[in-house]
């Protein structure tokens, strides 16, 4: 049995979580998931500005903090912290923690190969809109293939203390140590699916141990000291989802089921680079306090293509707010919204969308929100987006004037004029596996 804990559900998650995971109980592997779909574009911009950046900058200082512990306890670390510059990340880790052995998985970054791939006839169509990638060629900011567990297991086989990947899938981070330790092969579909589902349960950190959990949420103990999730994995593909003893939060059937359903598509066909996992085969049972045993998982063959994560610039947007109070808070906010829209119409500016929410009334749930009578205050929140930057910029000038020229009592305009931000959009596409070859480099 091996213990795999996830100390980071996204870049920006609780900094103490991975430190506590290595300090507060037994662990064999610490995994850290840093990359969201748009993170790569931010990192690519950083790398263009400075060739030594472009990775998750939280990661090297973390390794510095836990280096002594992971050496003493022989805990190995696997993270997709490399972003678009895994080698620079490895160098920074070695600076923060000299003496460690670091392995880097390369080959996922396709930013420099886009024209070559297009010339070969790969259209890399948007999986949602079916548009070919060539239609946005000049606006691409980053392009990466999601890589699976086998390249990461190859990196573990070097004996490295720390494995750094670029755009690996979240689930591969958990599956890789199982592949490495148990000798699973690419045709062990059921086991690979089990390890993938273990990864799905781990990938969002404390969201499976009582965080963001609806069931009896008021009585979930000690969320301030919530334990991050640990999988106790067996060679036969069964596993237990748990957390360290004495930590806060709660692991039970409800918390595990909620995370299983999180960001799920067709449950019978959960596709990864490693296998197809079938969520309708999962069997759960409680196995003591804060322990859920998972078994019965079936899988199928891996898809012939790898998914690509491509980011590109797609116009501009700005969002601004004004606050109105009782009496007539909602009516004031509605009139203010109408004035902004009329003034923008008079300027004959073109937007893709102008979106208004009355925060405190219907911002999140729209028509489903229960009716609010005579609210004490309402925040008017207006957003505009479009491909004409000048129009979006002009929109940002149309809110604050309402403080003096609109309904009475406007406040809450914060730091003044809203900021215009460039929209970085996401382009999901597929590429035949044969186009991607990964390799491992070791740094010590």
């Amino acid at each position, binding site marked *: 049995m091996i213990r795999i804990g996830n100390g980071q559900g996204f870049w920006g998650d609780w900094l103490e979580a991975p430190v506590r995971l290595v300090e507060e109980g037994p662990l064999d592997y610490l995994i850290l998931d840093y990359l969201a*779909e*748009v993170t790569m574009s931010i990192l690519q911009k950083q790398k263009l500005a400075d060739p030594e950046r472009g990775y998750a900058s939280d990661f090297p200082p973390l390794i510095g903090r836990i280096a002594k512990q992971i050496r003493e306890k022989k805990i190995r670390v696997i993270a997709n912290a490399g972003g678009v510059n895994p080698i620079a990340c490895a160098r920074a880790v070695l600076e923060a923690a000299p003496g460690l052995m670091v392995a880097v998985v390369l080959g996922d970054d396709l930013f420099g190969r886009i024209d070559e791939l297009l010339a070969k006839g790969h259209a890399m169509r948007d999986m949602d809109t079916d548009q070919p990638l060539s239609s946005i060629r000049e606006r691409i900011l980053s392009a990466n293939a999601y890589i699976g567990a086998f390249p990461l297991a190859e990196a573990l086989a070097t004996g490295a203390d720390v494995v750094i990947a670029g755009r690996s899938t979240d689930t591969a981070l958990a599956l890789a140590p199982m592949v490495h330790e148990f000798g699973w092969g690419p045709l062990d579909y059921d086991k690979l699916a089990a390890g993938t589902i273990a990864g799905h349960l781990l990938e969002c950190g404390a969201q499976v141990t009582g965080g963001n959990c*609806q069931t009896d949420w008021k009585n979930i103990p000690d969320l301030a000291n919530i334990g991050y999730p640990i999988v106790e994995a067996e060679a036969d593909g069964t596993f237990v989802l748990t957390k360290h003893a004495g930590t806060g939060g709660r692991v039970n059937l*409800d918390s595990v089921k909620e995370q299983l359903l999180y960001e799920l598509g067709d449950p019978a066909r959960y596709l990864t680079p490693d296998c197809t996992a079938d969520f309708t085969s999962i069997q759960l049972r409680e196995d003591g306090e804060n322990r859920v045993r998972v078994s019965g998982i079936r899988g199928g063959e891996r898809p012939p293509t790898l998914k690509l994560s491509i980011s590109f610039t797609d116009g501009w947007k700005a969002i601004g707010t004004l606050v109105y109070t009782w009496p007539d808070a909602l009516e004031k906010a509605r009139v203010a919204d109408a004035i902004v829209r009329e003034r923008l119409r008079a300027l004959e500016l073109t937007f893709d969308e102008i979106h208004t929410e009355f925060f405190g009334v219907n911002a*999140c749930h729209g028509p489903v929100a229960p009716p609010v009578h005579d609210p004490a205050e309402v925040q008017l929140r207006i957003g505009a987006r479009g491909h004409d930057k000048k129009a979006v910029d002009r929109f940002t000038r149309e809110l604050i004037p309402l403080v003096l020229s609109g309904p009475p009592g406007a406040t809450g305009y914060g730091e003044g004029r809203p900021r215009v931000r460039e929209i970085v959009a996401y382009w999901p596409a597929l590429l035949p596996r044969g186009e991607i070859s990964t390799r491992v480099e070791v740094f010590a």
Partner: protein
Amino acid sequence: MRVRLSQIAHTRSGDKGDTANVGVIAYDGKDYAILERYLTAERVKEYLGSLVAGRVERFCLPNLGALNFLLYESLGGGGTVTLRTDAQGKTYGAALLGIEIEAGD
């Protein structure tokens, strides 16, 4: 007899591009049959109204006593494009808890 979904189930929601998903899980396995029979894709689409511009697709996970709904074109462009406060549909699961469904005779 009718019940509010919150009385018999809990939910979790998230995003994939401009599509949100809502997982609905029966607290008690015996209530799964009610969910499967009455919480149809059509009912969910009707209830959520203008939150969902596209279609609603339903998948069944009887092994977990759960249903999974995909709400297409429900996030105003999704991801970084959207202008919505709830850019990733994090609260759509909570929104669905208010729906009332049949609960047998």
